[in-house]
């Protein structure tokens, strides 16, 4: 339960971090909040040769509005976002989802971008990014590219990030005028991994739903704006089967399908009721 030896560097600039990463590639790990990486190091699930600590780089520690997005730098913590004064107005979905992420004590350190980088299928932030159609900014020593959520998360713990890139920022679209948002999840204890997590946007032109914790990544569907009653139940039932849930030690596939149906319906209705 102690990490294997590694070199440690706390670079003084993003450029320096990227240069070290360019050289070390797959042998390096980026350390931001460390709320996922540190347990993996402690359990020796990963044994990097070098840790590049970006947690204290001021250039990456920001939350700002930019071109219709909320842009969150790689060093910004989940807690910083939770306490961002504009959150409830600009991103009601994130305001609802954030309290479900781990605990007060881990959100104090865990970063938004770190959660996206880890790409756990049941994690809340990748789910929100998928629902809102956000994007991540990937930066290496030689290039920068912007990747849409749908093209970023490729599967269980797997993303489009190359070994020489860091996620320098995540961009969540700001709330759409008139749209309502809903979020709900079921976990065995508060802060545990979600058995199913559901995010919904009920807009003027359609209802968009994303499901986490069931398939190998967040899955997104679009329903017609007016969907309700039996048609909504049928659509959720189809979606529940399409996710191809599997039994695991925490819940059966059947239970997860039931969560998609019931929690799905509740969350869609809640989002619609928030529509203005």
């Amino acid at each position: 339960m102690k990490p294997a030896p590694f070199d440690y560097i706390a670079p003084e600039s993003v450029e320096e971090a990227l240069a070290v990463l360019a050289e070390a590639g797959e042998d390096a790990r980026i350390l931001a909040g460390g709320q996922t990486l540190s347990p993996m190091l402690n359990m020796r699930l990963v044994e990097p040769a070098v840790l590049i600590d970006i947690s204290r780089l001021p250039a990456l520690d920001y939350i700002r509005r930019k071109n219709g997005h909320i842009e969150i730098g790689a060093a910004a913590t989940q807690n910083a976002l939770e306490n961002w004064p504009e959150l409830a107005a600009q991103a009601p979905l994130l305001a609802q989802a954030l309290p479900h992420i781990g605990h007060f004590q881990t959100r104090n350190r865990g970063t938004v971008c770190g959660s996206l980088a880890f790409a756990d299928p049941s994690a809340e932030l990748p789910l929100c990014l998928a629902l809102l159609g956000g994007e991540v900014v990937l930066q290496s020593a030689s290039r920068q590219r912007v990747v849409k959520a749908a093209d970023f998360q490729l599967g269980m713990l797997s993303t489009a990030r190359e070994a020489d890139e860091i996620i320098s920022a995540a961009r969540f679209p700001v709330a759409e005028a008139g749209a309502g948002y809903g979020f709900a999840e079921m976990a065995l204890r508060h802060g545990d991994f979600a058995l199913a997590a559901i995010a919904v946007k009920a807009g003027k032109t359609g209802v968009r739903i994303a499901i986490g914790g069931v398939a190998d990544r967040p899955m997104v569907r679009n329903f017609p704006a007016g969907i309700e009653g039996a048609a909504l139940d049928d659509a959720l039932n189809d979606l529940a089967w399409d996710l191809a849930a599997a039994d695991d030690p925490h819940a059966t596939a059947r239970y997860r399908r039931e969560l998609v149906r019931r929690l799905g319906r509740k969350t869609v209705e809640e989002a619609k009721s928030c529509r203005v």
Partner: protein
Amino acid sequence: MPRLKAGEKSRISFKLNGRKVSGDAEPRLLLADFLRHEIGATGTHVGCEHGVCGACTVRLDGVAIRSCLTLAVQANGRRVDTVEGLAEEDGTLSRLQAAFRRNHALQCGFCTPGILMSLEDFLARGGEPDEGEIREMLSGHLCRCTGYSGMVRAVLEIVEEMHEEQNA
């Protein structure tokens, strides 16, 4: 900071409960182990070493964090506060500690140091947390003895006291 080599120790110094402490750590040494084994500050406990139990919670620059998920080198030059810093020099308990005692909020005490440090940060943020919010915050800690009712009572008592002081 230059690159610290695996297996090589470097000198780490920080303010622990207001006093400067120093010790040697290789990069992989956890802050929890540095506190306990290098400094001898064994008030901070270690339960799970993967961020789940909360026993190791300390304040880093005022913020409640898991010291088992933080490297000692990351604390260099910063401020660390642990349970040892709560009571007065003469042993007088802090307000929070006294409320814990009054409300039987601890039994074996293994989980208590972490919970106290979390609460110190939580309460310092102001507002008037209600029972639901207090329980949600406590969900980041595991207590195998007492359950959480006494702790919730202790915190509610303090929130009430703080409210009265503000309005006095």
